[in-house]
């Protein structure tokens, strides 16, 4: 009983730690990559803008870690799971809306899209066969630039100003001259660029966040469908438990738990919700997401019930 209730401080601890870590990394990333969004203006503003998706990520992360740990516990998990479910509800119905209200995320992607690399001044910056040396940077505009292209004659040219086009990854002079970088990146950018799989996870997380925000604020006239969707989402998070105790190999279970959390982010998407909506009678279409999520969650929990109880395994569970 005591250990089951112990999941609460553990969850809160994980939630705070993961939030803090991701916020720190977000700030570091924004600073290191020089991706100061034009609209956000500063690291603090970008971190504020990222707080909501970070909290959502922390919810998923904490759920995974606490469930993985709970699976190693000798005690019956029923009470622990119930405590955890209450915590999920608290986060979904109160913490997330509160973060949403107090920070600046406006439902859009944070500043990552509007990349403005911050170039060091009076330093030879090289990407492939192109190099620049600049005196002043103002956003995307670079003043007093020496541009070097080994494919051009002469190799060196002086520009009053150049503009960096992050989408095309090249520099444009006032006379239309282009200094292409091709696929090359400046070494500063290369070392901090988000790896592709992580970038996709962030995309899915942002999409899920956007969906939850679109349901409205619970204490400001949220619809019944909204309440139902958040409720079913909390049960779906709980159903990750099934994977945490799927087999007697707990390393595999841990991997499956992580995969399940990632899969939920991927599946909680408009196309799938539309698919469920198409299968329902018109009167229930408003509840498509809630019903779809609830069915998946209940199915998973039923599987969990059918699995042999943990205490029947010949195990040496940790205390």
């Amino acid at each position, binding site marked *: 009983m005591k250990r089951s209730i112990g999941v609460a401080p553990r969850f809160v601890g994980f939630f705070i730690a993961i939030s803090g870590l991701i916020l720190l990394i977000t700030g570091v990333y924004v600073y*290191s990559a020089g991706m100061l969004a034009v609209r956000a203006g500063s690291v603090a503003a970008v971190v504020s803008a990222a707080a909501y998706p970070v909290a959502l990520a922390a919810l998923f992360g904490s759920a995974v870690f606490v469930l993985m740990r709970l699976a190693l516990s000798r005690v019956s998990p029923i009470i622990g799971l119930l405590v955890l479910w209450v915590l999920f509800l608290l986060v979904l119905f109160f913490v997330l809306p509160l973060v949403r209200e107090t920070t600046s995320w406006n439902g859009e992607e944070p500043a990552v899209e509007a990349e403005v690399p911050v170039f060091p001044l009076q330093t*030879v910056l090289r990407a492939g066969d192109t190099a620049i040396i600049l005196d002043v940077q103002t956003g995307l505009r670079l003043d007093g630039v020496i541009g070097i292209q080994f494919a051009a004659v002469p190799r060196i040219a002086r520009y009053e100003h150049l503009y960096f086009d992050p989408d095309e990854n090249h520099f444009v002079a006032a006379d239309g001259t282009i200094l292409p970088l091709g696929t090359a990146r400046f070494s500063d950018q290369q070392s901090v660029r988000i790896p592709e799989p*992580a970038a996709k996870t962030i995309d899915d997380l942002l999409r899920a966040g956007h969906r939850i925000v679109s349901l409205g604020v619970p204490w400001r006239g949220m619809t019944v469908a909204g309440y139902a969707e958040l409720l079913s989402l909390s049960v779906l998070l709980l159903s990750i438990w099934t994977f945490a105790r799927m*087999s007697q190999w707990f390393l595999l279970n841990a991997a499956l738990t992580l995969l399940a959390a990632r899969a939920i982010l991927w599946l909680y998407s408009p196309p799938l919700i539309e698919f469920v909506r198409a299968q329902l009678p018109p009167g229930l279409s408003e509840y498509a997401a809630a019903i779809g999520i609830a069915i998946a969650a209940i199915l998973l929990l039923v599987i969990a019930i059918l699995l042999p109880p943990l205490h029947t395994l010949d195990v040496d569970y940790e205390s």
Partner: protein
Amino acid sequence: MKADGKAYIAIGLGVAATVLIGTGAIMVRTPVTQVHDSLQFAVGWRFWLLACMDVMPVALASAILIVFSLVLQRYDLPKATPLIRAVRGPMVVVVVFGLLSVLWQAALAPRTRTRIIQLEHQSSMAIQAWEDANDAYKRDDLREAREKAGLYGAITGESRALEEFLEELEVREVVVRNPREISQPEAFLGEPDVVEQSVVEFIELAQDFFDRGRYYSAHYFATRAVELSPVERLDARRVQQRAWEAIQDEGRAIEDSVESEYFDAKFTAYTAFQRSTDSPEMLIEAYYRFQELAEERPDDPDVQHYLPEIAAGLTGISFFLDAARSYETYPGVQNLVFENEAREYLTIDHLVQVREGDFVYGVEVIRVDNDGAVLYHLRAPYGKFIGGDLVLRAVRREGTGTGLEANLIGPVYFSGDRPPEMRSFFPMRHAVDEIVRFGPGAQWLDQENIAKVFTAIPLFARLGLPVSGIYAQLVERVLRGFGMFILLFASIAIGWRYRSRYLGRPPVLVMLTVPFFPLSVWGVAEFVRYLSRLILLFSFSIFGSTTGLALLVALPIIVLFWVLASLARQRTS
């Protein structure tokens, strides 16, 4: 089987997987196709080693993770004992692998990469030498052919093709050998090497030449004695004066117009040579003047003396165009950019280092002032590092006879200018080797051992290159090298903590998931490395190099202690 045995199997499996995947990677990528056949193996096994060492951390960690979590059973281990004690032997092996990884990243991997570059360079030199040898053979330049074939043989060793070529060459040499001795320019009157002579000996030489009526040589050595002597030497001055008067008297005494003309030409050439100490341009002038004299009277002992000496002197302030052109296609480094003086930037298309010196091709220089205005911008087709200077003036070995300017290949100024004596000279703040190392960009850093990377921080700043490139390299080396300890110990701790509770063999379905674990380990390891890199690079850019380096050392140690503490908590049941 006991726990130790299974743990050793894990390590063995990891090593086997390393070798298999490393070999597979090499077979898929085949990076050695451009190398000469004789060097294929030497380059190939080094590439293979690099590939294996890249794979090893993940392969070992995966094997350890799987064995400790799935294969190792509780009845393999003594009861209620700390896990570390139960598998002490394998732990030692893990430490050895960790140390190997640190050593590999710090010194062995850069050395291997450097050796590959050297071998590739040798390979292209061998290919070039072989082509040159065949070309020389076709145009009957048998000496050149033998020289190039010798170079080819020295790099690639003996081969059937080389033997056949040398046999053919020998036959050809017998056929075309000319018994007449090629007249060599007579060495300077059989005189001893005068370079090392003392002032007194110079004066004696000058007097000796004067007594023999060789007034130019007498004047030359007397002048050298005057220049070299730290104190005023009246005896040297006297010989110098007398020799000069004798030269002028000799000119006045000549009545034959042809002789008189020749004397004037020689006098002008010699005067130019005398003035070259103040103006290097005059040495080039003197060179072409003496060359004309040599054409007219090749046996004039003064001409025989001065022409080689001036040519040698010329290489101190310039270089011959044909020499520069002869190395233009040689392998070297391409596309260098660096800062020389403050706000003076150089680009070099191609840099070749040969025995004759360090030649550069396609040099461009720009300098701007503090307001950004261009002070000068120029381009030169050829250049050579001479002493501490980059000299951009090439001279034709054979003068065209159409004036000095026509014989010089120097820089073209697009805008601005420099003082006349500096138009073709750029004092270098950096040694050539430093420029070669980092001028092409930071990518060469991975060929330097970690100590050299560390010490390159001020050099990078002097070259105007972003120091962040060095920080990134240091971070990468530490994370990859020291990270092996963390990865392997964490694998043991996590593997044991999340171990299987199956009493017998796990179900087939579970077994089928095993091959996916290395992929997961790779993904997690890469992601953790990415986050660590992000935080460490951030600390460098915000707090500077001292704090950054302190954190670079402290952070992995803290994480290692945390992992070890976690491992120490694992007990057998």
